[in-house]
């Protein structure tokens, strides 16, 4: 039995601490936004989870390519871990966004480019899991999974560009703002502290969860091997 590495335990503890600090900064430390009030505080975690959600999908696409080139099953475990963790984070992003959108836009959901792209991306990765479920052979599962993450990773940005042909109301807090966006604001320096710390915190949590998921994947494989040995 492989024991849990100490570094992972340390990272677990750090993750919990940074999550606590990020929550404190977002909920207490950051000043209340003038127009939207307290609901704007959702923004810190919304962007934090979105960032790691998208990061994971990029990581997954790269791992997919790496798998196709090297045929090393470790890349497959890496890819599954990235997709799984990101799908969850991305789901949280959508839920948090909805919570904010209800008071800010007066609706839980609207078919804005970013929202639509988020929904489509989420569906692509749910389809990814359904694809993997339908294949028994682990090597074939890894191959097909890698091909599909590649297709998904390429189509998501084009989806975004296509839907932009319709108008957008999603605010852009960093960078230039579209004239039609509703619910935008500019950050004060205290807000920036909370914002960047949230990004940092979620990156740490993401790495922690990825690590755990990869470890789980290799343990699963070991169990399969042991089962095979017994039956033989």
């Amino acid at each position, binding site marked *: 039995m492989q024991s849990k590495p100490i570094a992972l335990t340390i990272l677990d503890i750090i993750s919990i601490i940074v999550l606590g600090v990020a929550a404190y900064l977002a909920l207490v430390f950051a000043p209340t936004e003038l127009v939207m009030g307290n609901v704007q505080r959702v923004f810190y975690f919304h962007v934090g989870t979105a960032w790691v959600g998208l990061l994971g999908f990029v990581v997954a696409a790269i791992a997919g390519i790496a798998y196709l080139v090297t045929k090393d099953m470790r890349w497959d475990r890496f890819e599954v871990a990235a997709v799984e963790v990101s799908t969850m984070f991305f789901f949280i992003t959508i839920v948090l966004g909805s919570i904010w959108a209800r008071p800010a836009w007066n609706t839980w959901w609207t078919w804005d480019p970013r929202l639509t792209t988020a929904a489509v991306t989420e569906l692509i990765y749910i389809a990814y899991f*359904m694809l993997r479920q*339908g294949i028994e052979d682990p090597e074939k599962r890894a191959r097909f999974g890698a091909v599909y993450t*590649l*297709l*998904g990773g390429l*189509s998501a940005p084009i989806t975004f560009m*296509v839907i932009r042909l319709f108008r957008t109301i999603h605010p852009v807090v960093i960078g230039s703002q579209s004239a039609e966006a509703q619910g935008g604001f500019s950050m004060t320096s205290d807000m920036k502290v909370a914002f960047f710390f949230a990004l940092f915190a979620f990156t740490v949590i993401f790495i922690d969860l990825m690590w755990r998921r990869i470890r789980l994947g290799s343990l699963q494989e070991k169990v399969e091997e042991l089962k095979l040995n017994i039956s033989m």
Partner: protein
Amino acid sequence: MSPSPSFFKATMAIVYKDLAAELRSRELLSAMLVFSMLVILIFNFALELDIKVRQSVTAGVLWTTFAFAGTLGLNRSMAVEKDRGCMDGLLLAPVDRSAIFFGKAISNLAFMLIVEAIVLPLYALLYNEVRIFQLSFLGVILLGSIGYIAVGTLLSAMSVQTRTRDVLLPILLFPVAVPVLLASVKASGGLLNGATFAEILTPLNLLIVYDVIFIAVAFMVFDFVVEE
């Protein structure tokens, strides 16, 4: 392997095989056609396609019909290869694997275009929509079909090897094909409502970008999908 006369010949041989088989059985085309008519019939009553509604939804109705009929055809065309071990025979042939992809893709595209060539005039007749017959509209239909079939052929080669088979294809294909469907609807809808060519240039460009990227990617990864 670089494209050579033998590559082209192999591709065409597969296209010829599919078209000849279809000409004799007519299973696939008849199924796709009847299905398309049924979808339009359902839309007719579900959306109450009177003249005002039609103005905004015609492009959407047509593309939904083509997408559904397309999955039907893609599934069938790959399933016949798999069922009788035909795919293994093709893979054993000493030709570049991507020739198989292009062969299948071209014959799938041919089936889809034949269906469109029958459904579009029929729709025009039923709803008195003569603007369907402009060259740019047909061009958009062609570009959209190419993109849809390129990804569809690749994914159907994948889904046919899974346990859930034909159930899985639309689930895999639709989210990835969203850009192609949206851009096509936007461009063809614009044309039907009297937009000029310049006005639909953006969706048209995205359509071309999508086609180029996905044909290239499908060409590159098809090997990984069929290898045993």
